[in-house]
């Protein structure tokens, strides 16, 4: 879905681009006072194989009074690079895909939709379906991985082990479709570079049926384990009113609005979304046929005044927003990417209030936000 906003002059257009959401580091605050006051600094290099960020826990005794999240370590200028790569769509889309690697398909879809809307090209229905199929596989893989990691963080190893393997199965399904486990280079303006043959389609249907059984068993095991549920229940609560005020999106928002906003709620939302995504995938697999591609013009057409094109995709973490500002000649002036993570860091900081630091890993995993998507 793409929206077009037109502007008479550049100042208005720039003001619009500047108004888009950006995560900003919290302001420096005075250290806590008192015998029990202390600060724990973590990062940028973390203990696990994860991205860099700096966390500062201001604690009173065992309790976290305030968590400050400092980002920017991953900043490499993705947006500026997309503008600079004008005329090389392959490079631009690769840049968009590597903004946040676990959201490659959603990002490529946003970029492609903007190009298509600007050039006034309608993509074939089968291509649209296939894009959705890839997006849903991306959603399932990530949710499965995160649920497994949550289990791992509370030392419930059966589900951690099962889900670690099952996530790989879904990545391999994406690789079956396009050759890359993260769906890189699959989505392009005009359609896809994917050939869904009848053989692949049938293989996927069978594969999903087998893996889904294992996945159901793995998740049932965790959600029916009292010690796990007890650990998740009431931990890292973001109340509904706070979630709405902070403007949380995606999984975190659903968990606060539809459920209780704790780690268990965020885990349950992921389980629900896995179910929804499977229904969609199976439905799409019934309808999908070989994909075709619409030809894109070599140059984007001229336009009236300045135009900002906004593409929104329901990515697995929440709404992913790409906004491109073009001038009248079709030149790309600015590009902005608003990753759903950007909205949710404050939710994570809130969730830690009054918790112990030992609860940070499960709170963090229940959100699993993207550092690189936020830093761009």
């Amino acid at each position: 879905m793409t929206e077009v906003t037109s502007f008479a002059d550049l100042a208005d257009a720039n003001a619009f681009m500047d108004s888009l959401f950006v995560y900003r580091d919290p302001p420096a605050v005075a250290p806590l006072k008192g015998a029990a006051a202390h600060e724990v600094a973590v990062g940028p290099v973390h203990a696990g194989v994860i991205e860099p960020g700096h966390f500062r826990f201001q604690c009173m005794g065992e309790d976290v009074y305030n968590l400050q999240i400092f980002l920017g370590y991953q900043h490499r200028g993705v947006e500026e690079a997309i503008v600079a790569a004008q005329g090389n769509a392959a490079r631009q889309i690769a840049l968009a895909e590597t903004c946040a690697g676990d959201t490659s398909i959603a990002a490529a879809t946003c970029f492609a939709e903007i190009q298509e809307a600007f050039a006034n090209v309608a993509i074939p229905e089968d291509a649209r379906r296939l894009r959705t199929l890839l997006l849903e596989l991306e959603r399932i893989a990530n949710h499965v991985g995160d649920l497994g990691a949550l289990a791992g963080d509370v030392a419930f190893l059966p589900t951690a082990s099962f889900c670690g393997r099952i996530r790989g199965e879904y990545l391999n399904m994406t690789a079956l479709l396009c050759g890359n486990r993260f769906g890189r280079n699959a989505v392009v303006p005009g359609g896809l570079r994917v050939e869904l043959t009848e053989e692949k389609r049938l293989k996927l249907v069978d594969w999903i049926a087998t893996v889904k059984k294992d996945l159901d068993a793995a998740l049932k095991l965790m959600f029916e384990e009292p010690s796990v549920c007890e650990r998740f229940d009431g931990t890292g609560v973001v109340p509904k009113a706070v979630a709405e005020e902070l403007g949380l999106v995606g999984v975190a928002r659903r968990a606060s609005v539809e459920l209780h906003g704790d780690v268990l709620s965020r885990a349950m939302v992921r389980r629900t979304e896995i179910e929804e995504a499977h229904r969609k995938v199976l439905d799409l697999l019934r309808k999908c046929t070989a994909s075709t591609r619409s030809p894109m013009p070599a140059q984007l057409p001229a336009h009236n005044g300045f135009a900002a094109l906004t593409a929104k995709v329901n990515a697995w973490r929440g709404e992913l927003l790409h906004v491109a500002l073009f001038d009248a000649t079709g030149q790309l002036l600015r590009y902005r990417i608003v990753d759903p993570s950007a909205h949710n860091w404050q939710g994570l900081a809130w969730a830690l209030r009054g918790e112990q630091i030992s609860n940070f890993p499960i709170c963090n995993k229940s959100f699993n936000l993207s550092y690189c998507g936020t830093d761009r």
Partner: protein
Amino acid sequence: MFKALLARLKQGYKTGSFPTQSGPNLPPDFRGRPEIAADISEKEFSAAAAVCPIKDALMRDAQGVRLDMGRCLFCGRCAEVCRKIRFTKEYRLGVFTREALVVKAGEGPYTPPQQTNPDALALRNTLQLREVSAGGCAGCELDANVLGTLAWDMGRFGIRFVASPRHADAIYLTGPISANMQLALDKTYAAAPEPKFLIAAGACAISGGLYAHGRLPAPPALYIPGCPPHPATTLEALLRFTGRLTGQL
């Protein structure tokens, strides 16, 4: 506990047969080591270079046409427009020198390099890695993490990701080294005890990929190309790095 055992029994043994009994199970459209035909013309080269997302990944000069796997994203666009370039199923991409990443037109059959460095060979049964993500997109990080899952289980070869550089034999670098991670990377590398190695995984860590490349704290001892490298590529490269794997799979 019985439920967990029952679930395990139903799922069965899921660790892959790679690399102990067979080669990896790669997708049909897998793009591995590229091959360039010796008779690639200037016109064919230009057509391929025009669609490449990376500057200087495809080169043509006095030495002929070459493709730098250290820059390549393995997107396969060049092969779509030029029949003289082909991405093979060769997944063994890890090499020990930067020059070895460059594929030349008309190159003969490929043999992966063998380790001769005694310090690396000493890690045959234990290779402790400290990962540093320096401006990466998390793709390389995720597919490195995957090696710890039971599907790949690199732990059976004594390979582990450890929490501290003090415990590490090698720093496993991903990402182009953003300006804001340069200091943290330098300090982490410095904190690892000698002898130590730097492993550059992914196009970003090797050459910056799509982005500006920061300063490598040392010349890498192992290069694992890809965007991101397939887990099979990474595992095979790590095993060959320590001399644990020498033959063909």
